[in-house]
């Protein structure tokens, strides 16, 4: 059997990778993907905890997270398109009209 902590550590590492991606990637789409990675990491924790507590709510929660992720993806990609349309770039460093 695999200890619960292993799953959680894996989850933490994946979450960290996601955050790092958000911080370091320049392409808006990749940044958005990093968010998806973070959500996936969270989902792993949910499933692992669900197994630990023998509580299906955890898995149900994952279901909802996925729905939300899908909705976010739709909106997010639309926003990215809108930004691309006005700014002609996907580099996040160049999207800085608003500052100070």
């Amino acid at each position, binding site marked *: 059997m*695999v200890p619960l902590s292993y799953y959680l550590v*894996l989850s933490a590492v994946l979450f960290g990778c996601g955050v790092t991606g958000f911080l*370091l990637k320049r*392409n808006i*789409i990749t940044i958005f993907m990093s968010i998806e990675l973070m959500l996936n990491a969270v989902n*792993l924790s949910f499933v*692992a905890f669900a197994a630990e507590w023998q509580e299906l709510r955890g898995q*149900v929660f994952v*279901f909802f997270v996925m729905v939300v992720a899908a*909705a976010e993806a739709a909106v997010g990609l639309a926003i990215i398109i809108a930004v691309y349309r006005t700014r002609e770039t996907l580099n996040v460093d160049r999207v800085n009209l608003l500052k100070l």
Partner: protein
Amino acid sequence: MLHLAIFLIFAAVCVGGALNLLIQKHPIGSALSLIVVMAALAAEYLLLGAEFVAAIQIIVYAGAIMVLFVFVIMLLNAGEEERSDGSRVATVVGVPSVLALVLLITWTVLRHYTPASASVGTLHGAPKVIGMLLFQDFLLPFEITSILILIAIMGAVVLASKPHTRNANGREN
């Protein structure tokens, strides 16, 4: 032992995929590595007994959502990432913070669940059981998600559509 070995293999794939996502210069590369991560995660879910979750992970996540990503990448003809340096804060402040964060969470988790003390078994999350739960206890959230999706569709329509220009008379061009 077998469980552990499978876990470790897929965990390695996960982490490798995640790192590859970071390393890849082209968004397509990142997208593909994300799909790898998702698939590997589905395996981990199965390992934990969450069949239904594993299934929709592949179908919805890796299948639908990621296809959308790839589609947009193609649509916008996104090229290789520029190596612009717009933010020192992200590297100087952000990355160490992330490291600290991960270490802190890991430390907490390991402190809370020593590897020896708690090994999880499985929780059989069959579609039927999940379905029962969704349509009884979670009926309201389930129904509310419809609004969420509606909003998402509306938003996508509004934002992705061509700007809606009218001249001064209010007549559409």
